[in-house]
């Protein structure tokens, strides 16, 4: 059986326009064989979680440069809990200039990994491949 293609949503919450990081990660994940959906800018947590459910992705990767990573990720994690059917699991990762103390707080609220400035693409790819949840495949 062929290996299931990993599907990733790259999402840009917040009101800022710093999207180069998101675009670079999106292209490199695609190069690594994943299927990537990019939300574009200025997405609310509600829109992001709805896209993740609708596109049936395995991974939600948020890129946050607006300084509001704690507020925004809290909202996203809460929405995932409320709106996602029980048997569906997302791997949730966050990126951006996030200080170590805040990375710790993000993991406490359920974010699986934080890739702060200076992270290597290979590490992101490896983390996703090692941790992607096995979801029931959609018929």
């Amino acid at each position, binding site marked *: 059986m062929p290996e299931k293609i990993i599907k990733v949503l790259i999402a840009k919450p917040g009101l800022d326009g710093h999207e180069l990081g998101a675009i670079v990660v999106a292209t490199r994940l695609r190069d690594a064989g994943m299927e990537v959906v*990019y939300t*574009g800018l200025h997405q609310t947590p509600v829109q992001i979680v709805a896209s993740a459910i609708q596109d049936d992705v395995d991974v939600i990767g948020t890129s946050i440069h607006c300084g509001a990573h704690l*507020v925004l990720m809290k909202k996203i994690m809460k929405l995932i809990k409320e709106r996602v059917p029980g048997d569906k699991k997302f791997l949730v990762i966050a990126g951006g*200039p996030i200080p*170590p103390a805040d990375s710790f707080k993000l993991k406490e609220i359920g974010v699986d990994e934080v890739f702060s400035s*200076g992270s290597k693409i290979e590490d992101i790819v490896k983390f996703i491949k090692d941790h992607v949840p096995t979801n029931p495949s959609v018929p």
Partner: protein
Amino acid sequence: MADDMERIKREEKIWEEENKIGVSPKSPRVYTDLELEAKAVYTPADIQHVDYLRDIGFPGEYPFTRGTYPEMSRHRPWRYSVFTGFDTPAETNKRWKFLYQAGQPAFNIVYDMPSHMGVDPDDPIAEGEIGRVGIPICNITDIETLFKDLPMGKYPFYGNAESVAAIFVAMYIAAAKKRGITEANLPGAISNDPLSTAASKSTLAFSVKHSFRLACDLIEYACRKMPNFYPVQVKGVNMSEGGCSMAQESGFSFCHACAYIEECLKRGLDIDTVASRITFFQSTTPHLFEEVAKYRASRRLCARLMKEQYGAKTNSALAWKFTAYACPLWFQFEEPELNLVRGTIQGLAQALGGCQATPHPGYDEAYAIPTEKSQSLALGTQQILAEETNITKTVDPLGGSYYVEWLTEQMEKKIIEVMEGVKAKGGAINALESGYTKREILRYYLQVLKEIESGGRVIVRKNKYRVKEINPWERLSLHSQNEEVVQIYIEGVKRLKRERDNSRVESCLMRLREAAKGTDNLMPYLIESIEAYATLGEITKTLKEVFSEFKAPAIIPA
């Protein structure tokens, strides 16, 4: 003369062969940022067709290759500054006082994201973003707080804002009036360039078309009533932060400038007035010679464009004026202090390129909002360049360098190619709306990214000479938000909305809405609304009832 050139070329060939230049594995080919090969050395033969008086000339004279003004920074430094804005207007006012004392000849702010998008601080969508990457500016009292105990009008007020720039300038005009300063005497500049922002960064509250209309309203208003205010700074720097090449930066910028000019001409302004008020906001990478060539080529090209295409005549309309910013894309995360060194080299390129103003980034810019310490170091870097190094004693000291003159010429050609690409797509606005401009920028950046990933483009500590033990977070004491003052500020906005004369606000907004449906210049309606204590968010919402919203194209390049 021609014989001399032939002799030089012959000798150069012999020299290359003797030294096996460009033919052995030890001497691979070397390329410039223009995707052109750089020779090992340049000679008079490389620029023999350049006519000094026609193509280079004297500073302050057509075609302005050597400088915008006759003496440039010989007697007065360019206007150095740092962008400031964090937490609240009151907190930023304290930093401004520090910078004023440190000799900053400008009042320079950076807006937070809700402000850029026309969202009020008490709007739930802005939660967590108030005062984070800049300052919240919501209503006239914020501008008053910002200038508290500072001499408004003494130095220019600078800021970057795009589709809501007209609203911020209305606040500045209204606040100044309360202090007895007329708009005719108000100095300053605002970027007000939704076109370049649509290509990259995308912080637009309204669609390209409607942002453009509002931007032109401000340009027209300033051309008629504010002789000391520059109402547009075409933001090449936005596109640079989005990854564009140097030629794209200037090329797209010129296309966007032409769009503003043509709209203002349609509105009955003359070319000498409009062109003299358009300035450019460019980035600077650490690639010193290419950058100097970019600035020199842009001056020459702008002068020729304004003269030949639009018939501009006055020096102030023909001379390209620019602010330069050390592009934060080239400030690195690894070993933050090295950004001081990069910034100094970028600053040197700006000075040698003949800049008029330089807001300088903090070395901690890649991590957070700069601290007082990093801002002092940034301002001091520019002050040392301008006043300690003797580089300003003569104008355009790199002029006449065979290499720099050759590069200037090549740069000009590449910029023209970019402009022709836009023309073929039906002009600036079509190129933006179809995603062409953004796609072109990303195509170039992915090339650069490959160079970085392969090590072809060295970035010290990032892809070469890495040191695992250096933990940048431990080396910095970063700015952290004072959440208490931000909460108090948000409460203040709510109080203002309760306590002002709300029927007056409503009637002002109603008049604004009606005017937006027609073709009147909206500036007087904005000023009237601001004077009634209407907020940025309320004005933006009112305009959105008439204007469409911007949707940034979500592109993952192939």
